[in-house]
Each structure stands twice: as C-alpha cells, then as structure tokens.
C-alpha cells in the first residue's frame, strides 16, 4: 500500500465520517442552544429539556412507557427464542419443521399489513391500548431473527458438552440451564440487543395500538409534539426529544458493538 493511497483513504474516510456524524452533532448542539434558553435570553442552557420534560404527560412518563415496551419485548423474545432455539436444535418433537417454517414466514409478511387485524385481535384478548400487548407484538416480529440466531448458537455448541452433562446426571432440561446457556450467551445478547433497538424505536405499531395519551411511547409523543396543532412547532424542544430518544440506542450500541456485528456475520439475516 503506497503512502499516497493510505493518505487518500484517511482523507475520504474522515470526510465521510464527519458527514455522517454532522446531523447528530447538529441536533445535540441545537438541543442545548436556544433562543429561549437562559431566562429568555438566547444562549446555552437546558431550557429546551425543561420544556420537553413538561410536555404532555411528561417526558418521564413517556420514557417509562417506552422502557416497559422494550423490556417486555426483549424478555419475551429472549425467553421464547432461547427455549425454542434449543428445542429446534436439539430436541426432536412432532411439528418442529412446521413451527420453524411458520416462524420464518413472519419475515415474508410485511408487518405493517397485519397491524390492522392485530388491532382488533388485541381488543378481543383485552390488550387494546396496552403497553404489554404492544411489547408482545414487537416480540413476535423479532422471532424469526431470534430463532435463527439461537438455533444456530445451540447447533454450534459441541454435542459432547451436552452429553457430558447428561452423563453427569443432568436431564436435558437441567443441561440447558446449567451448561448450555453459558455457551449461547453471546447469541442471547445479540438477540436482546436487536430486540431492544427495534422496540425502543418503533413508531407505527404504538401509533396504531395506543390511544390514551398517558400511555404513548417516546417516538409517538415526539411526533405529537411536532405535529401539535397548537401554534408553532417548538423545534428546539423537539431536538431535545430526538437526543433523548437516540442517546440510549447510541450508548447501548457502542457498548455492545461486537454483539451487534455478530447479527450480520452469523448468517441469521440471510434467513
């Protein structure tokens, strides 16, 4: 590699990196910089965040709602696909092929199209306008990726590991808990991470399923802030909201980057 080419690579690379980071830096900058910041005087301050905190049912409520949905989605996805992945990888049972195919079919069905019947169905089972119901639906959409990931995680473990556990007196059930879970933990983290990002950021499903303003998740509340009919849009509070919504994702991603990339290299995306 010649020196000129290396220099060219770094110039192009850093120019593109700046270009991609610029919109995020701008929103961060405008969220703490306001015409109305610092007692009505233009300048720096957390004024935008204070107005955001008081918006509607309160930023705290929206954050808690979003967190509840994300936790339900992550917990259900992880538990269902870990047990299901183990069952499909190691335990033969009647209908295992059918279950695998039907679960993967979720990928083939564009999810926005089944939101309308889901809206009716959630009403029938008493989960209309419910954060739990929303979390369950978002978990369902994560099942194909999660199942693929967990099934291949279990298949990648050496069979001897399970056999050794069985010889040592474990049942297939306790072998899963005591021995195998440790081996598939990276897969579990990947599935949880994908599920968290999807649930935290979801917009159209909560827009349709939630009607009570006090139950809105952050993206829906911010959309209301933007499209609010009363007077002009508070652009600065809106950018404070964008930062609040994006920050957890950026932090979680930077911490767990390695596990995120595994989702791509494992072939789970290829289905």
């Amino acid at each position: 590699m010649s020196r000129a080419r290396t220099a060219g690579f770094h110039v192009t690379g850093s120019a593109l990196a700046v270009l991609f980071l610029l919109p995020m830096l701008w929103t961060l900058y405008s969220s703490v910089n306001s015409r109305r910041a610092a007692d009505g005087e233009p300048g720096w301050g957390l004024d935008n965040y204070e107005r955001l905190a008081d918006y509607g049912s309160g930023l705290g409520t929206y954050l808690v709602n979003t967190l509840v949905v994300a936790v339900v989605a992550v917990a259900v996805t992880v538990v269902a696909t870990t047990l299901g992945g183990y069952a499909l990888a190691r335990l033969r049972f009647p209908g295992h092929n059918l279950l695998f195919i039907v679960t993967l079919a979720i990928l083939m069905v564009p999810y926005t199209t089944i939101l309308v019947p889901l809206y009716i169905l959630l009403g029938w089972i008493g989960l209309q306008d419910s954060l739990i119901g929303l979390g369950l639906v978002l978990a369902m959409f994560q099942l194909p990726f999660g199942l693929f990931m967990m099934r291949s995680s279990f298949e990648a473990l050496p069979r001897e590991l399970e056999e050794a556990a069985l010889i040592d007196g474990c049942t297939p059930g306790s072998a899963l808990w005591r021995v195998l879970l440790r081996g598939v933990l990276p897969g579990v983290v990947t599935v949880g991470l994908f599920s968290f990002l999807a649930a935290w950021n979801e917009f159209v499903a909560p827009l349709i399923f939630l009607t009570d303003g006090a139950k809105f998740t952050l993206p829906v509340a911010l959309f209301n802030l933007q499209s609010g009919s009363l007077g002009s849009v508070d652009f600065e509070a809106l950018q404070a909201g964008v930062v609040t919504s994006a920050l957890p994702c950026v932090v979680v991603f930077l911490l767990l980057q390695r596990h995120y990339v595994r989702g791509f290299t494992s072939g789970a995306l290829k289905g």
Partner: protein
Amino acid sequence: MATLTRARPRTPTPVAPPDRRRRATIAGARRRLGILYASPMALLVVVLFVIPLVLMVWMSFNHWPLLGASAPNGVENYSALQDPLFLRAIGFTLKYTAVTTVVLGLVAFGLALLVQEARPGVGAYRTALFLPSVVGLASTSLLFYGLFNTEASPLNGLVDFLGLGPVDWLGSTDNALASTVGMITWRFAGFYMLILMTGLQSIDPVLYEAARADGANRWQILWRVTLPLLRPTLALTMVLSLTGSLLAFDQFFILTGGRHETATVVISVYREAFLSQDLGRAAAVSVAILAVLIVVNGAQLRLLRRGR
C-alpha cells in the same frame, strides 16, 4: 432420531435390554421437553401471527367499521384498490422505491469497498458510518424535519453560502422525494454497508491474486470477480431495501404527512383504517400488498438461491 444414533457409541452401555428401555424413555422425555420448550414461541406465532393473518383475509370480505358491528359484504372492500388516491400512492411508492434502492445501493457499496480492508483506523470509520443506523427512523425523521425547517440549520447555511437562495426542502413532490431519499441514505447506508462488507470479506483473496496474476485491472476485477461472487449478498440487500421502501411509512408520515402527493401505500392503509375508520377496506388493501410482496420476495429469493 439422529441424536440417539450418534450418541450411542459414546454412552456407557452396561446391559442391553435396560439400556434400550432407558433410551426409549429418554426419547420420550426429549419429545415432551421439546414440545414444552417450543410452546411459548408457538403460542406467540399462532396468536399474534397466524390468527391475525386469517382475520385479515376475513375482515377484507366484511364491512368492518372502526366502531360498531361488522357484516359480510363480499368483495366490495376491494374497490379500494381502484381508488384514484390509492393508485397515486402506488405510483409514488414505486418511484420512491426505485430511487432509494439505486441511490442507497450505490452509496452503501462504495462505503463497503472503502472500509472492507482491515487497516489502522478503519474501525472508527465503520462505527461512524454505521452510527445513524441505530437511531430510530421516527427520530431520524424528526431530526431532519428540524434540519429542513430551521432557518439556521447547516443545510440552509450551505445553500445560502452557495447562493442558491432558500430551498423549500419538503415543499413539492420532487423536493420531498429528494430530501427523503437523502435522509434515508444517511440513515441506512451504514447498515447496508455492513451487510455488503461481510459479503466482500467472505470472498477468497486467492481469487483476486489469481485475477491480478492473469493481468486483470481493478475495473475488470470488480466486474468479473467481485460482483458475480457478491450476488447472494447483493440480492439480500435488494430484498431488504425493496421491502423496506415499498412499506415506507414513518419518513413520509412525519416529514410531509403525505402532503404534496407523497402518500405511500402504507399511509393510505393507515388513512383508510383510522381516518375513514373503515377497517374492512384497510384489510383488503393489506391483503393485496401482502400478495404482491410475497411474489416480489419469492422471485428475489429464487435469485438469491441461484447465486449460491
């Protein structure tokens, strides 16, 4: 029973008859355990996926108001497919899908070529390029709504600097389309870059060396070696990009609210269901979208298989 035949030589076998009985009970226990462990997932799939799918088809043949009783009405709901507004939404969605898939594909491929090689500093670039992809699409749209509408935003500053006068970024169909494609490219380029990069890295470097030894230049290597071998990955990114764009909702719902004839197909489903409060017609449109996407995805998956 592959499990047991493989396990047989390794399990200690003191006496034959009790062992066979033991093995049979183990197989039975495994079957029961398999059903038990698979049941949470099966329950979710049946209740939240299979039943809604059937319900969707049933609803499409019923007059089904948002509130109130429903009644069968044959294929009447399917007249929604001839609604001029819906036809216009199809046109716009196809146009958006074509532009996005091409622009996004080219940008992502360029980025993937840039960052595929492991060398000092490349990790930081990959992270920076990928970072927009972890921000939610709704948040991204709200962020760009601010960029497009704030006078003092760097975007308007740049236009001013170039002396192009104020631009109404979302003020017409073409402007809104271009602005949205730009935003979507920013948001998704890193995501597709990562997929394409994984594909590029799985190509055996020996093939490049052989091509170079045969006197191929860089351009020839790209066309004759890289692209053909990358076909499965390219097909995958096509499937994801086409499906994602055909179902576009968040970006236009937030940026334009469907104004200036930028309503997408999914926005018309939403309007049909929750503004016109006619769930039956919304279901009919959904059934049609589903049918089209299954055909599109089926064709593309065949392409994907052939490339393997």
